[in-house]
């Protein structure tokens, strides 16, 4: 073979291993912080952060790791919130089964919406998911079990496995933390699995993946349903935390918000969506009592982030020297 520009293969490997220890250390510290947090910060606020962090991470599974921009994820989040709330309140199901119903319901919605939208590309895909989620919104508005404008209120948290009383705030917090970590673990495994490898190949060169015999729509649908199910997990959890499910959760603004959260933090990173959602939620809570219109502020934050940090906050950090030393992986 002729000498090309690529004659130094030896130095290709170590970059990835660098900072591995630092990364483990950071993970342990983060975990410790999450365990200690409810003793210093208002737990319901923390739980809200965890719910929306999981929602954004689930959304990012689709946008960041599959390359599909959905504008209809509120249907899964809000739909699951309704299912979980209804099962817990009307049927008196224990929280773990109510949550499971929310996940299954969201996955079912994901199968239907995904099957219709998946063959479209780019903006058409986004438009179809938006249209379908709007149809679901109106269905929720009309159906009696959602109680229209009132929503489902005073959802009981119940006893986990019939044993642990989730009305105890700390119990609830650690349950939410466990579900949040489980959700992230599932996303991590999904992305770093044999299936995830094919998803990555499809994202990098779809035509080539087809020419190798991969049924691309089936892989995209798989990722779509997984993302929907996890968004449902977040939505159901939110219904138990805040003890209500309303039309706000299924409205198109919620679909927009999760896009915003993910882009601010950085798509295609594990931490980006969590940081992004924390910023947005914190802003919303801060400004909730002021006269300032929240949407304008979050919109401004979004614009600044997109203009200054095109890869998102975590994406830029991962590309920087500091990020590398910390063992963060750049997206891609």
């Amino acid at each position, binding site marked *: *073979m002729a000498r*090309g520009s*690529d004659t130094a*293969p030896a130095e290709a490997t170590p970059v990835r291993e660098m900072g591995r220890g630092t990364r483990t250390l950071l993970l342990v510290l983060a975990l410790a912080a999450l365990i200690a947090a409810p003793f210093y910060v208002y737990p319901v606020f923390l739980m809200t952060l965890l719910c929306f962090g999981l929602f954004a991470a689930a959304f990012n599974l689709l946008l960041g790791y599959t390359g599909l921009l959905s504008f209809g994820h509120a249907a899964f989040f809000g739909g699951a919130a309704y299912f979980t709330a209804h099962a817990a309140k009307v049927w008196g199901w224990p929280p773990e089964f109510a949550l499971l119903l929310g996940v299954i319901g969201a996955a079912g919605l994901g199968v239907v919406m995904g099957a219709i939208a998946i063959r479209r590309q780019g903006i058409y895909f986004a438009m179809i998911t938006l249209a379908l989620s709007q149809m679901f919104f109106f269905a929720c508005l009309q159906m009696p079990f959602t109680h229209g404008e009132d929503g489902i209120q005073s959802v009981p948290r119940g006893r986990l496995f019939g044993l642990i009383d989730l009305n105890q705030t700390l119990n609830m917090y650690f349950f939410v933390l466990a579900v949040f970590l489980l959700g992230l673990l599932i996303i991590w495994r999904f992305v*770093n*699995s044999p299936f995830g490898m094919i998803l*990555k190949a499809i994202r990098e060169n779809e035509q080539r993946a*087809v*020419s190798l*015999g991969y049924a691309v729509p089936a892989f995209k649908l798989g990722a779509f349903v997984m993302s929907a199910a996890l968004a449902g997990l977040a939505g159901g959890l939110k219904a138990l935390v805040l003890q209500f499910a309303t039309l706000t959760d299924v409205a198109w603004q919620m679909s927009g918000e999760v896009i915003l959260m993910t882009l601010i933090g950085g798509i295609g990173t594990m931490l980006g969506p969590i940081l992004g959602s924390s910023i947005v939620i914190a802003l919303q809570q801060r400004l909730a009592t002021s006269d300032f219109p929240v949407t304008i502020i979050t919109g401004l934050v979004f614009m600044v982030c997109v203009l200054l940090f095109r890869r998102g906050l975590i994406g830029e950090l991962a590309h920087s020297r500091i990020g590398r030393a910390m063992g963060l992986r750049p997206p891609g």
Partner: protein
Amino acid sequence: MDALSQTAEPRVVLSARGLGKDFSGFTAVNNVNLDVRHARIHALIGPNGAGKTTVFNLLTKFLQPTRGTITLMGTDITRMAPDAVARMGLVRSFQISAVFPHLTVLENVRVALQRPAELHTQFWRSLKALDVLNGRAEVLLDELGLTPWRDTRAADLSYGRKRVLEIATTLALDPEVLLLDEPMAGMGHEDVHTVADIIREVAKHRAVLMVEHNLSVVEDICDHVTVLQRGEILAEGDYATVSNDPRVRTAYMGSEA
């Protein structure tokens, strides 16, 4: 069995009859008949815009033909999806190099191996599950001289090596028919020779249809040549026959020589 059938050409594995494609009124390919045979290298040549890539897209079902039929190993594939055709053993490369840029050389080849090994749907297993494919992948890398770049990202390879990696990935599927769209375009002399040797070697056990502009390569390694012009077949035969055809000389080679 008489002597004739013993010297007869090997079986046809891919054939097209009356193949045609219109792009909103413009006929890019018209009435193309092709017979691609096992263990033979078949060249598709012709000036730029003649419709060679379009023929490839039709044969591999990346484009739906407007007219005609395509048969792969006795099965009519005219209405099939491109991924299904690939799974039947008709695998193509692309005119513009098609690797997975952010995957390593090893991972590129493994992506191809994952499907036949049924390691493509598991979303609950660790990436370590793919290590069982390393042995087979490394053999391929070794055969094509890519071993030193095993863990290099494909994006960091030289152009020539990207094309070799593409061939390695294609061969990983052990296809019955190989379609190569300008596999040597933009390569240096040495690379051209290496790739020509590789193609000659792999064609011992499979059919190869390739688009190639380098006529000395065509003369060197191809058994059969089809000349395309403005979407239609202008001439056909072995290299000597085709290159002496006066129509081919004026239409194509005149500008080359």
